[in-house]
């Protein structure tokens, strides 16, 4: 067990910082500190162009193996990259679903042909992905997916029908990975398959959802006999649940460190407000600010633990608590930001419900404890899978 950075690591850190400072300029300057959670609707085209810049610099797939076209960087270097990216105000990544979820899933379960087909587009920053899991009737009970897929008569295409919901970036994505029922009459997690579906077709309709923030990051996605080639399935028919669950494990990868640096930037803003308006002298607010600081440190240590173990998508103790840990922490930061702002918190920056970053944080962090498995579902998972307590009754 060893923490800290070597002199060589510091050279790498300087290289990353230098590249970012040099490239977050000109057309990309307005993107600094933009596009994060709660702000994902901002500058989509510019952020896609930024992805291509990142790709040119070799900064996509830094943690992927070299065999998969990545750079195979050590954990330490990945930590450094994500820290410097957030420190420089690197914009919220349009490519994170492809890089962080689809790539590792293909690396683990994809065929050589699938890897060859999909990995280069992710690495080049030219193909963007969205996630088709939740449905109106399959939220916490994700295994209740009703979207259906069947092979057409020629056997060359899957035809997909149904509705997905809470799909971030669906309107900006080229591809969607869809959990669909391929075995008619099957129930629960049996008979599900994991399909890769091109978004650019008339049989798919994307409908934005206006959220309590007033903005729309999430969408409903309607599939009406949407098509994808027969070989665009990861794993075999019926293996969809296994792959879907493994993918959720990859969600807890090195990108968590980048997320934490965004949290760090938000907390620094709260601290700056507290200094400015005198909240720093309030004994109770001081305690909460310090608690938030210590809590964020611990999220980082948790990530370092997760990343130091085998990266096979398995969920160890520290990974099982991770979602509950960060979502709870972040929602509390949102409330703390409002309490530190005091009276200022109530007045908006402008008409049309224009929120400041801290106001957006307060509202948007209420989604954090819901999406990707609500806190209640997380507690079930922890109790049943980590603590070995009896499973909930299932219909």
């Amino acid at each position, binding site marked *: 067990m060893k923490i800290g950075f070597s002199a060589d690591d510091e050279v790498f850190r300087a290289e990353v910082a230098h590249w970012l400072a040099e490239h977050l300029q000109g057309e990309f300057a307005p993107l600094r500190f933009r596009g994060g959670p709660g702000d994902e609707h901002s500058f989509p085209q510019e952020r896609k162009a930024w992805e291509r810049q990142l790709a040119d610099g070799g900064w996509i797939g830094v943690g992927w193996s070299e065999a998969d076209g990545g750079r195979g960087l050590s954990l330490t270097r990945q930590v450094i990259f994500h820290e410097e990216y957030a420190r420089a105000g690197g914009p919220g990544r349009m490519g994170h679903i492809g890089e962080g979820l689809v790539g590792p899933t293909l690396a683990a379960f994809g065929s050589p042909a699938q890897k060859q087909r999909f990995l280069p587009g992710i690495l080049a920053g030219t193909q963007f992905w969205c996630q088709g899991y939740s449905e109106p009737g399959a939220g916490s009970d994700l295994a209740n997916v009703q979207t259906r897929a069947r092979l057409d008569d020629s056997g060359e295409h899957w035809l997909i029908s149904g509705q997905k919901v809470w799909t971030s970036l669906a309107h900006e994505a080229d591809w969607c990975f869809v959990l669909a029922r391929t075995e008619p009459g099957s129930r629960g997690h049996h008979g599900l398959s994991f399909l890769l579906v091109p978004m650019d077709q008339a049989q798919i309709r994307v409908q934005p959802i206006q959220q309590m923030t007033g903005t729309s990051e999430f969408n409903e996605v309607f599939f009406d006999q949407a098509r994808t080639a027969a070989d665009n399935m990861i794993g075999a028919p019926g293996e969809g649940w296994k792959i879907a669950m493994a993918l959720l494990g990859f969600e807890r990868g090195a990108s968590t460190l980048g997320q934490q640096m965004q949290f760090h930037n938000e907390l620094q803003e709260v601290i700056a407000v507290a200094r400015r308006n005198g909240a*720093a002298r309030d004994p109770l607010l*001081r*305690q909460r600010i*310090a*608690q938030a600081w210590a809590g964020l*440190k611990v999220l980082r240590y948790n990530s370092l633990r997760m990343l*130091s173990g085998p990266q096979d998508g398995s969920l160890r103790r520290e990974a099982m608590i991770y979602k509950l840990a960060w979502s709870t922490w972040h929602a509390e930061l949102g409330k703390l930001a409002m309490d530190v702002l005091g009276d200022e918190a109530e007045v908006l920056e402008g008409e049309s419900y224009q929120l400041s970053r801290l106001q957006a944080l307060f509202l948007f962090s209420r989604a954090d404890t819901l999406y990707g498995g609500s806190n209640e579902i997380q507690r079930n998972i922890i109790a049943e899978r980590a*603590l070995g307590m*009896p499973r909930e009754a299932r219909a």
Partner: protein
Amino acid sequence: MEFAFNEEQLMIQDSAARFLAQASDSHAVRAAMARADGHDLALWQRISDELCWPALMIPERFGGLGLGFVELAILLEQSGRHLLCAPLFATTCLATPALLLASNPAVQDLWLGAIASGATATLAFASQAGLEADSVQALAEPCDGGYRLRGSYVHVIDGGQAQLLIVAARAPGSQGEAGISLFALPADGAGVVRTALPTLDQTRRLARIELHDVQVTPAQLLTEAGQGWTLLRDVLHIAAIGLAAEQVGGAQQALDLTLAYTAERRQFGRTIASFQAIKHRCADLMLQLECARSAAWYAACVAQERLDPAGDAVVAGELSEAAATAQIHASEAFFNSAAESIQLHGGVGFTWEYDPHLYFKRARASEQLLGSPALHRERLAAQLFGESL
């Protein structure tokens, strides 16, 4: 960077867990609690002679094993888990780090060698409750080429039985961080009066120590006279980190007791562990526990760099922040785990016979021992807002 245990560390963890599961089971803990001195000397001899735990972190040139603070933290997690009644914490987390950071080779030679062979030791510094420099009120008056020590110390951890005392005392007329010196002295010397204090947590003993004109020589100084505060402050941070590791072990065991009991206990025709109300509370306990564990491990790595003369100075610079972060999380995780253990055991959780109360009392004592969570938060806040404490 590699934030996971290596194979040797996992072996240390495993062998300590197996040893303590027998040597410090509930029966042994209760027997030690009932003794006047609070621990079983024969057990301490096995720990020092057979297992060499006190020698673990002491460099080989002083007769130790030359391992680091991370290995010690692994042991402490297990000793906390089994409520080990022995002067392990005071000896390894208070006295040993003070001696390791000392700049006087003669004092290191004498006492690190003694600890490696089983001598028990502790640190006495505060004449009034508190962890700040002002708490050091005992006086070191220059006298006959040495010093005469006078004053009293409250709540000295395992101070009733320790064979070696590291004491802090200040130059007459000095204030704050200036003028503080640290001395090593045998606890049975003339003028040392020790009074064991009855404690709410019977698994760890405290004592009051008085020094009545105890004569010491400059050879007993740990560092240059009057320059001891930095060392003392860092030792208290390091000890807080060791304590956090212990607390994590305690929290783990309290949760394990709860899981075992709720899996057996049946009401309404089913085990109570199957009720979501109970599952979710246990999940929250595990969340706090794993956060505390991450914080304690990380802080142990920081302490290791601070104690190593060739350690990474940047990492060592995180000592106060890492100690505060570990204490905040470990104290709350342990207390909540122990309190919930009583609640989820139901009525039997309130009895003397079942173990949850032992953990509950240890948890409360531990969260006060080296600074409450509120104190550690206030320290962090002062650091964040750039104030000097």
